């Protein structure tokens, strides 16, 4: 099995969709010692779509996201990002190439304000030197104002003006999730990875979040890959769904099709042996 799979280029999965392929996962396998987290998975993400990755617990969804944003390095297979094959990539490289993400458990700086947290999302886009920034004059100040403006636009977009100056640790969970989304958006990503954006939210918060995800997709044209357990949300939001189970891909296609797939139903409900 230890065959090094060569990049196969833009090979469509049999379906034709408008827009070019932004990210392509090709026969990727990932294992930790003897545990195979992901086995020979291939799928692609087309620019401008909302792509959902679903599956039962332990199916390898989060591992998949970690592979995409360079946190894990697959032993086998290739990842093609904007037409370029990459094998190993550090998370910060992925970030500077336009991949941003949020986490399953909120990973914000709890003692910092919402504003400061979102400003950290601009870090990669700051160009003035350390000394200039310490002095905060001339070009550094101009740059900071420019970044602050962008951040304010995101605050306005996600309607979190009221918590601008509130330390994140004091916010309710639903709002923290929104701040995390704001920080990811501050990077102006091309691909946004959302790891269970609705987990632990009440109905109203879920509705708000769904609204924001759709707005991000439509207004900024950001491509979104999301992991979510709430099937209602997945069916409403996503253009295409890929289903994983025990590290394997068991289905891939539009929501209605996936919903009717017998393998998917079996994976979720279990089958008698």
């Amino acid at each position, binding site marked *: 099995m230890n065959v090094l799979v060569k990049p196969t280029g833009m090979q469509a999965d049999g379906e034709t969709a408008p827009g070019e392929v932004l990210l392509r996962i090709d026969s990727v396998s990932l294992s930790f010692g003897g545990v195979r987290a992901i086995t020979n998975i291939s799928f692609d993400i087309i620019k401008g779509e909302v792509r959902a990755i679903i599956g039962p617990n332990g199916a390898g969804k989060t591992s998949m996201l970690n592979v995409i944003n360079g946190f894990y390095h697959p032993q086998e297979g290739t990842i093609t990002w904007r037409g370029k094959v990459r094998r190993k990539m550090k998370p910060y490289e992925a970030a500077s190439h336009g991949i941003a993400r949020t986490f399953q458990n909120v990973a914000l700086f709890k003692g910092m304000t919402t504003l400061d947290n979102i400003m950290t999302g601009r870090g990669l886009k700051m160009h003035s030197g350390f000394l200039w920034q310490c002095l905060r004059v001339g070009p550094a100040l101009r740059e900071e104002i420019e970044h602050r403006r962008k951040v304010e*636009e995101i605050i306005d*977009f996600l309607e979190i*003006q*009221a918590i601008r100056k509130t330390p994140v640790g004091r916010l309710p969970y639903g709002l923290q999730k929104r701040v995390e989304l704001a920080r990811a958006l501050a990077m102006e990503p091309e691909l946004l990875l959302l790891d269970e954006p609705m987990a632990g939210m009440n109905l109203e918060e879920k509705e708000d979040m769904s609204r924001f995800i759709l*707005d991000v997709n*439509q*207004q900024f044209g950001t491509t979104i890959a999301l992991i979510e357990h709430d099937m209602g949300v997945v069916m409403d939001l996503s253009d295409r769904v890929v289903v994983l189970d025990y590290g394997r891909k068991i289905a891939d296609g539009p929501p209605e099709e996936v919903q009717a797939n017998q393998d998917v139903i079996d994976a979720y409900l279990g089958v008698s042996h």
Partner: protein
Amino acid sequence: MAGSPVVERLDEDTFPKFLLRNARVFADRPAIREKDLGIWQAWTWAEALEEIRAFALGLRGIGFSAGDKIAIIGGNRPRMYWSMVAAQSLGGMPVPLYADSVAEEMAYVLEHAEVRFACVEDQEQVDKILSTSDALPKLEQIVYDDPRGLRDYDHTRLHSFEALQEAGRAAMAADGSLEAAWLDGIKAAKGSDLAMILYTSGTTGRPKGVMLSFDNLVISARNGNAFDKLDEHEETLAYLPLAWIGDYVFSIAQSYIAGYCVNCPESLETVLSDRQEIAPTYFFAPPRVFEGMLTHIMVRMEDAGPLKKKMFDGFMALARRVGERILNGEPVGFRDRLAYALGEIMVYGPLKNQMGFTRLKVGYTAGEAIGPEIFRFYRSLGLNLKQLYGQTEASVYITMQPDGQIFGDTVGTPAPDVELKIAENGEVLYRSPGVFVGYYKNEEATRATKTEDGWVLTGDAGYIAENGHLKIIDRAKDVGKLTDGALFAPKYIENKLKFFPNVKEVVAFGDGRDFCGVFVNIDLTAVGSWAERNNVNYASYQELAAHPDVYDMIQDHVDQVNRDLAAEPMMAGAQIKRFLILHKELDADDGELTRTQKVRRSFIAERYAPLIEAIYDGSTRKHVRTEVTFEDGRKGAIEADVEIRDLTIHPSSGGGLQEAAE
């Protein structure tokens, strides 16, 4: 500061005319500000005129003409205000709606008002209108302010505010006579023309459209400005619903007449911090806002260090003693004045800064009774907080409290040009230049409310106290009589008792009975914290409510209320003779309260009939069983022995009104 001499001239009688004057006289002064992307953006009067003109001409371009009505649905945004004046400049009428009302309610008003145009804030409102558009054949064009999410909508009858303004500017550039025609239209308008239609929320039945003329609004607003000496230097915060008459009067009418600046907060949640930044000089809020602020301060002071706490307590005690007297200009000893000045630096100043009241010249509260303690707290800090009594049908002002004559339990003397009288049944009637033209397409309702010679029935019962101030006691239809003929105003008694923090809800009975009896609901938070401090153990609301010490405490409160009532000649007859503490909390899930937390008196009377019976048959204990609905919808029953206590009735000591009011 009586304002510039130009302001005193009375040439202008419509708001578009005031706009033209302000653009000339106050060209460089700010007219309106909005916090956008975290920064306050200001438009001067000259700029506001340009924006309104461009929009008005754009609106004309899509067919708006004199007599047309335009629905305004949205939050407090400059463009929402501009669209109202733009419509008026074309001889049309704005019909502002509550932005949070559901689509069906909106559809009724839109249909009834026969609007052909709507100017709305965002996608949410556009969606609401489109969802009911089948029922609205008359509605032709929709204008929106915020384009977010609307890009893919069908734009045949949908226009962005900016696009209309651009069209207006282009039309003006192409045709030189267009602006002159617009100005001529404004000049031709008269004060007697209809300025707007406001739909009252209508607690019973369908909302009614109150038609107000420019004269109504201009004269009322001008009187309001003169009464409190407001001029172009004022700053206000616009945060109350556009569909409420108060917002129109404070944010447009008085602003346009005096030339002062209106500030639009970033969002409803940021009002507190935005107020701190703006520090309004003229401010209105319903009582619950002031209550909320006071609670917030007190809770935070509990967490303060001992030194700060001591300082706060000390200076607040001083403020309670002399603060209000200093504010009223009464003589106060030199030492107290000195100490108060020190307190201003140490405590009052920072407190006012926290609340955003550093520059407050006059603040108003209205709508409901405000707790005397709360009212006094603000006044003792040197804040000129006053009460007013008003109605949509009166263009707000009916009575106002003149400076120096502030009493917590009365709502003031008749506003300038307002005549007041009390009907046989105790209902308050008024006549003023602000009295509305009529209800739109509802002659019957107009006749029922407004008499031939111009008197308007308020629906509120009240009387003129000995100091000449109006006192409102209850809704006229709720006021009853005891068997001995004494006046019984349930809400008045309930409110008095509810001002005690330990009391959450009260239901008073007595109409057609021998005496007044009340049901009390204790406030679990307040009484619970008392129990904690006094080592009283309890397992449930029911157990705490039945505790003898709690009964003693509530008895003290009721006795205090009786003493207050005894001091008022009109009310002395309806003192509370017997009370009980209910064994369960009144709950909207059980239908005892409305969803807005108002007591449903008749329903409670029916549900707790055995307890009412027990109050009036003299028994001291009563066993009851009550069905309850739990939060998850299951049903259960609570059984309890409820104690009923008697109180002594205080002899009427009329004439003590002033004292009670202080």
